[in-house]
């Protein structure tokens, strides 16, 4: 599957991704694709490997095997090496043998245009909401530390501040701009994380359980909000989510993961009807 014809619209493509920690195979041979302008959801029971998949995409983890492409460009390629070659527990371990491993650090990947939020909110806790977003603009700077120290970048600094304020307004947090980020209520913290991610000028937004801990009303608002920013910033959205209503409402397609393996893929309607999913995932969840 690795060298299939490139899909013009493909923003993110994972091929044969396996992530193994010691003897534990967290993801086994996962392949998926997210196309331009789509909202794609990744669902599955707890411990299915969803966040691990995000971490493989954003460079936090180096996948054990497989490749990740972003706009057709490989951003992670690996095959089992060294000690891992012996204890490799996934499949397709030899597909990428001849490929040169590609590794990027998370900041490089963010530079390319993938921004993310975190499942367990990771805001900068000593900073205000405004400063949190402002930090997100840092990576597109043109100033170096000298020009910044000597304030030769005033125009850029002003633009950064305007952009941050603007984003806060869009996510509806301009009134709490000077509040300490961690003092905000949960729902606002989640929105702040999204605003911060948007500040990095992404083309692909990864949302890790954006609705976790929200009440139904907030969840509904969030759905609208995600669609809204997707359109406004011309984004592609890939999200992990447990709230099925939200997932079914806004997703174009859904991937289902269980025990590290992809068990289904399709539109919300298809997934809802899929017996495998119902058995493995919904069934379990309902119990």
């Amino acid at each position, binding site marked *: 599957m690795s060298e299939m014809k490139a899909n013009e619209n493909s923003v993110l493509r994972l091929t044969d991704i396996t992530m193994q*920690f*010691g003897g534990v195979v967290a993801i086994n041979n996962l392949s998926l694709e997210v196309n331009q302008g789509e909202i794609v959801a990744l669902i599955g029971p707890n411990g299915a490997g969803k966040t691990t998949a995000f*971490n493989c995409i954003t460079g*936090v*983890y180096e996948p054990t095997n497989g490749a990740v492409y972003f706009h057709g460009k490989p951003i992670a390629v690996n095959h089992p090496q060294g000690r891992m070659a012996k204890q490799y527990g996934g499949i397709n371990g030899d597909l990428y043998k001849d490929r040169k491993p590609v590794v990027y650090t998370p900041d490089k990947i963010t530079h390319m245009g993938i921004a993310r939020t975190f499942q367990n909110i990771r805001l900068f806790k000593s900073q205000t909401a405004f400063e949190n977003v402002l930090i997100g603009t840092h990576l597109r700077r043109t100033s170096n530390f000298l020009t910044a120290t000597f304030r030769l970048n005033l125009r850029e600094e002003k633009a950064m501040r305007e952009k941050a304020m603007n984003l806060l307004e869009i996510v509806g947090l301009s009134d709490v701009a000077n509040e300490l980020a961690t003092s905000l209520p949960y729902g606002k913290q989640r929105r702040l994380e999204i605003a911060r991610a948007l500040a990095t000028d992404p083309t692909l937004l990864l949302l890790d359980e954006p609705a976790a801990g929200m009440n139904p009303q907030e969840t509904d608002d969030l759905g609208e909000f995600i669609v809204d920013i997707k359109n406004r910033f011309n984004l592609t959205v890939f999200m992990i989510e447990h709230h099925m209503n939200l997932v079914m409402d806004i997703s174009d397609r859904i991937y289902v993961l269980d025990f590290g393996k992809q068990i289904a893929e399709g539109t919300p309607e298809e997934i809802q009807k899929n017996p495998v999913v119902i058995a493995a995932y919904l069934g379990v969840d309902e119990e």
Partner: protein
Amino acid sequence: MFNTLLPYLLAGISVGGQYALIAVGYTLVYGILRLINFAHGDIFTAAGFFMIYLTASLPIGISIPLVIILTVILGFTVERVAYKPLRSAPRMSIMISAIGVSYLLQNLMWYLTGGLAKQYPVLPGLSQTIRIGSATTKVVTIVTPILTILLVFALVTLINKTKIGMAMRAVSKDFETSQLMGIKINNVISVTFIIGSAMAAVGSLLYFTNYTAVTPTVGAMPGLKAFVAAVFGGIGSIPGAMIGALIIGICENLIKAAGWTAFSDAFTFALLIVVLLFRPTGLFGEKVTDKV
């Protein structure tokens, strides 16, 4: 060639054994609290002073157990006063507290002893000189490695076979979960400090028998080296700490033999940095993957 190196080797093995006894305290505490107990070297020094003041009025046979008891009390108190209140604080705070305690102990000892070097008492049996091949040395040089191995063996048994040992292993694997499992964390930590301090007290008996001047800052360097030994051996591993300490003791003396005295201390740190960069888990440490 061998004859010139022999005294250095002997000195290395003996000082290495003494470092090992200090290193046990570091490795245990780090294993459980993830804390570099900077005050450990000063507790070692304090044990030296206890001995000096006790033997001034008491026979050696009574002084030695008293020294160990007093050192244990000191180590225990330090933990309760300076580390326990910071259990939930960021790790940096605890480390700063450790540095503060070290500063306090050094200044306190300076004040109480008048800042002058004190002469360590002569321990019958240990202080005699003997000849080994072409080298002359003290009995303690021979006793140290044997005693060290015995104590380390006993400690490993304790940790592997007893209930408290099991608790210690559990706490070092996962602090929070073991707390949930009903392990009394504070007791385990106290036991850790007690064992570490007792080992340091024994180490000080051996160390100062060889090098008889005790000053308030004398423990700082051996303390740091022992920590390096613990890292080198793989932090958390007791046999590792011992082997690391022996290697460091021998290397540093061989460097002196090569005429690079000025770098004998620097070597230890260079070794530390090399180990941290290329094998952060040390010789015998277990590999840990970070969770994000």
